[in-house]
């Protein structure tokens, strides 16, 4: 009898902990984490799928959306048309969208995948160094899921972190004042 009571009490306690425990992903600070103001975006050097090498410094003076994604991620795939529309509408005002694929397969497979999906913006294969750099930003928390997107302003500062599938209008609210 006492054992059953203890068991129920333990189960109840566990349920309460699970419901209210605030992991990084759900913590407000980990979502955008820029209450202390913008921080410099970590520099990176990546191989774009069109064969070029791209560096963050190349885009100084532009507003950059850096989108971490993968081909096996359904919400990432759902986000491609959103980013496409965003890029088409704002590219002339200085918006650059860079998709960073976390796939480990051949870049050619990713390139074909994007071609089938009609992605118009720049895409590159990510690497662990870059992933770790964007995963250890003070106040922003780790990248715990994808898609995760960062908005970088014209001065190369991180302005916003979006976790999960983000719609065009949500991006717009952040990028419009920056453009």
């Amino acid at each position, binding site marked *: 009898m006492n054992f059953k009571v203890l068991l129920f009490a333990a189960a109840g306690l566990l349920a309460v902990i699970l419901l209210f425990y605030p992991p990084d992903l*759900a913590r407000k600070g980990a979502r955008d984490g820029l209450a202390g103001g913008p921080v410099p975006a970590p520099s990176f050097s990546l191989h774009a799928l069109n064969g070029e090498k791209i560096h963050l410094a190349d885009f100084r003076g532009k507003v950059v959306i850096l989108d971490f994604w993968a081909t096996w991620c*359904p919400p990432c795939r759902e986000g491609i048309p959103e980013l496409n529309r965003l890029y088409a509408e704002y590219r002339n005002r200085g918006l650059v969208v860079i998709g960073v694929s976390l796939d480990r397969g051949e870049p050619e497979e990713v390139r074909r995948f994007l071609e089938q999906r009609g992605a118009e913006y720049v895409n590159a294969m990510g690497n662990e160094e870059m992933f770790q750099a964007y995963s250890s930003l003070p106040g922003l928390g780790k990248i715990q899921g994808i898609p995760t997107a960062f908005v970088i302003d014209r001065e190369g500062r991180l302005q916003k972190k979006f976790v999960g599938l983000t719609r065009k209008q949500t991006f717009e609210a952040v990028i419009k004042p920056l453009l």
Partner: protein
Amino acid sequence: MGSKKICLLRFDFVLAARAVVRHTPRFLCAWPPTEAWVTPTFYENIFNFP
């Protein structure tokens, strides 16, 4: 903030339990573990953010 669709990059028992308690998992992320250089994700779900 509303709901978000996301693929987790690592398994987290707490997140998984919260997801099950608060929402119904929609579908698994179709990941081939050998092709993900980050710790592979286990499921796709919808989380409510504060």
